[in-house]
């Protein structure tokens, strides 16, 4: 039997080398779901909440706002929608594997793209706070000799963020695939003496992968999303207060 671990399936190719893969389709579905969810949660809002939906919507907004206040301070209030978006996108992407979709976060291009957005935010916040000169000067500290290291450190931030998320999600799917393959081999080994199709009954694949899925898809998925937004907030607020 053959086990292969590959990237996203290419669905079709457009001119200019644009490829549409499962990642894109999953992302569009996730965006649609999040958009509809937001619309559903916030339709018919009242000053005196009468629906559980509204309480949920307000709780989400308030939780993100409080988290933002705690980590970054009040002056980053306008940052909240971005953090909420990022969190929702990462969580839904990580959980989309449960619904048979390809996890967009299992594609390095996705996590890299998001990390680049975060990096641009860190950079712009830093430059807004310290000015271009201040930022460039900050790279030469504490001594000029450290400049190359500081530049590498700057670029390490998005790369590490992208790799962390991608690696966690990918590792989950790799382990799941390996486990499935291993259990299939074990099943066919145990049942090999049985005649006909009975030898192919996947007795071990039932149940055991679900437990691992709870960890890798649900727990790790939410945790990594949380880590991703925490790092984003920490880096951006650090950029605003540095030097």
């Amino acid at each position, binding site marked *: 039997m053959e086990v292969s671990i590959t990237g996203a399936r290419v669905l079709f190719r457009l001119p200019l080398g644009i490829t549409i893969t499962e990642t894109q389709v999953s992302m569009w579905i996730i965006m649609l779901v999040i958009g509809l969810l937001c619309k559903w949660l916030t339709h018919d809002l009242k000053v005196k909440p009468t629906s559980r939906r509204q309480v949920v919507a307000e709780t989400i907004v308030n939780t993100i706002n409080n988290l933002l206040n705690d980590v970054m301070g009040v002056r980053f209030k306008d940052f909240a929608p971005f953090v909420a978006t990022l969190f929702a996108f990462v969580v839904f992407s990580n959980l989309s594997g449960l619904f048979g979709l390809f996890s967009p976060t299992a594609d*390095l291009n996705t996590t890299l793209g998001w990390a680049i957005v975060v990096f641009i935010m860190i950079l712009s916040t830093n430059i807004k706070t310290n000015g271009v000169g201040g930022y460039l000067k900050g790279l030469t500290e504490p001594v000029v000799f450290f400049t190359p290291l500081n530049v590498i450190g700057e670029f390490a931030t998005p790369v590490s963020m992208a790799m962390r998320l991608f690696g966690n999600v990918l590792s989950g799917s790799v382990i799941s695939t390996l486990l499935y393959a291993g259990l299939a081999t074990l099943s066919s080994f145990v049942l090999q003496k049985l005649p006909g199709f009975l030898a192919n009954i996947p007795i071990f694949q039932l149940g055991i992968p679900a437990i691992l899925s709870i960890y890798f898809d649900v727990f790790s998925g939410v945790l990594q999303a949380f880590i991703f937004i925490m790092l984003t907030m920490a880096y951006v607020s650090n950029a605003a207060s540095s030097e």
Partner: protein
Amino acid sequence: MAETLELLSIDFWQTLMAIGNLIILYFIVKKFLYKPVNEILESRAKEVDDIYSEAENMRKEARTYKETYEDKLNKVKNETDQMIKKATESAKLRSEEILNEAIAEADNERRKAENDIYLAKKKAMEDLSTKVSSMVVELSKQIVQKEIDLDAHQKLIDSAIDKLGESV
């Protein structure tokens, strides 16, 4: 087997699409979740402020009302106090008047009665003296069996009776 990307591949367009999707989703979340929720939170905060200021106004109003009523109550109390005092005084005066009148009237009555008694007594005395003197004369006439000078004896007896009356 379908065509797939390499496990670790970086594709410019794919990365760009991920960035674009994130930005699009940002606007979706901002418009459909944050804007309405923030609006509702703001209007709620405003409503709460309104309720607070209204309550404050009502409290102030209530305090002024209370002061006014207390003033009025005090005034009324003073007035009634005065009225009661006045009434009590006038009643006292009137009762004294009545008492004095009664006493005077009683005095008059008594005096009149005394006078009457005096007159009656005097009359009775006179009657008695006349009867007694004639009785005595009659008696002595019978005892002595002879005519006595009525006038002389009358005088004598009268004086005796006068003395008797004074000692009574």
